[in-house]
């Protein structure tokens, strides 16, 4: 028996509605705007272009990711979660959590993009979080990989991502902010769907082997469904 979700979804396996718009920024080489429920992320990709700092020792391409959070975004999720709101960081509007988020998105993109195809050139990815209601990493990865593909950067595969949170015994796929706060364990998975390759995984909390296997399977299924939607959006534009 399933309990209906707080945001009205019928079951724990239901994903929120994902909408992907492309070419939202005419100045960028590729851009996208992704809405995952109430989480809204826009992404602009510039390049490949000449790197600002030319490192002659590196012969592959460089991918740089910067995450910005607009002041009116609903919540600084990670801040509240960890209970260390820092006034100075808040002023700069660029917290340690966002730096971490940048690094995570960059890792996923570096795994997917074929950096050897643009030697000694740089791709800049700017992710702007417009509103946050859980799954901002998921939305950011989907937005960034779609924008990267749109910019004509060669990639092994599109990256897709999905999150899952455990509330009591329930495994809740694609949780909202409120569900994340209630949860006692969380799994994040980024993968390349047509390759069936896992790119990044992150687990919080204590999991049994069986439980985590089920969690990862559900995440992978979620990734595949998101992936299909992103591909449809790319083909339509």
């Amino acid at each position: 028996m399933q309990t209906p979700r707080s945001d009205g979804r019928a079951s724990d396996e239901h994903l929120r509605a994902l909408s992907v718009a492309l070419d939202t920024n005419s100045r960028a080489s590729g851009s996208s705007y992704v809405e995952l429920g109430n989480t809204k992320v826009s992404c602009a990709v510039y390049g490949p272009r000449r790197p600002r700092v030319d490192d002659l020792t590196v012969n592959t391409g460089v991918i740089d990711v910067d995450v910005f959070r607009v002041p009116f975004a609903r919540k600084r999720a990670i801040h509240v979660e960890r209970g260390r709101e820092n006034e100075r960081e808040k002023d700069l509007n660029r917290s340690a959590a966002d730096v971490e988020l940048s690094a995570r998105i960059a890792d996923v993109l570096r795994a997917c993009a074929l950096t050897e195809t643009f030697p000694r050139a740089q791709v800049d990815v700017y992710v702007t979080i417009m509103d946050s209601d859980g799954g901002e990493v998921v939305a950011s990865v989907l937005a960034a990989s779609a924008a990267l593909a749109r910019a004509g950067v060669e990639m092994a595969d599109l990256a897709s991502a999905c999150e899952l949170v455990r509330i009591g015994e329930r495994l809740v796929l694609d949780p909202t902010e409120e569900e994340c706060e209630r949860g006692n364990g969380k799994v994040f998975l980024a993968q390349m769907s047509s390759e069936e390759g896992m790119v990044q995984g992150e687990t919080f909390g204590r999991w049994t082997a069986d439980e985590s296997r089920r969690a990862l399977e559900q995440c992978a299924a979620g990734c595949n469904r998101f992936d299909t939607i992103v591909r449809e959006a790319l083909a339509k534009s």
Partner: protein
Amino acid sequence: MGAGVEATSEETRARFERAKTSLERAPARTTRPNAAFVAPGERIPGVEHGDFLRGHGTRAIATASTTDETEETLVATTAGVVERVNKLVSVRALKSRYVPETGDVVLGKVTNVSGKRWILDINARQNGVLQLSAVHLPGNVQRRRNDVDELNMRTLYAEGDIVSSEVQSVYSDGAAALHTRSLKYGRLKRGQLVRVTANLVRRLPQHFHRLEMDEFHDSVATGTHDVEILLGCNGYIWVGAPSAATAPRETELRREPNDAIDDLNEAYGDKVPLPQRENISRVALAVRALAELFLPISPPAVMDVFKVSKEWGVAVQDMLGQGFLTRILEREVDKRVEAYEQGK
């Protein structure tokens, strides 16, 4: 008629969308049965196992087949349209940076003047490099290889100048070495630069064109209000008053080897008469309109948009309005259908 003046109402937008879909459905002049859209990681449809040559935007991956032999399938690495020439299969991205090739005509903006060379932005992965030894000095004087010469580089091309040039060679990291060793190439003046996606400019035998405007103006000397259009392969397009780059052949013959590069510009001074200015803006906006609709840019296409904008009495400032764009799109659909009917 004032098309495009109205705020983009719901109705105009709906009409625009309708025209867009009918263009997508319009029969293409060349029927490509295998034109398919792929995203990275997707298998390219209709490619028989092992029976292909790997082109740009694809990669071959080994897949385990039922027998012990490993088979190779072709997988896309770029989001774009599948193109095939015989066995060569490649994927062309809709939007990508310019990839320089030797012999391409490119326009660039000087971003930096450094020792013995200019650094140009040419919309590619890497900057374009124009060596001091790869230019003609004005008046074709012999270059004296000394430091004074290097100090004077800014008098030739300074930061922010738009320069037309040709790709001489491409370095291993994708950077392009440029040259302007021809009277056709050099600094561009009296016009404006339009940037579009490089894919919209095809490689043509001739990239410098002079659009004749005599039919639109009465009682002026021939060619006074002509507009010159230089199509850079890198998607930078120059629209301006005619210069030596597009001088008719007779003038070229009369030219002495010692002539300055932009003698024509000097003859006119830096003045551009008002009707010509309007022509330049109109042509530039015609280019932008085509780019907005993702239609290929060629001199006949630009001239066509220019002509209809005049015919329909669209004001220069309304040329990027949804109304005008919709009508251009509808016209394109009609043209394609007509061409298809004739071909049948």
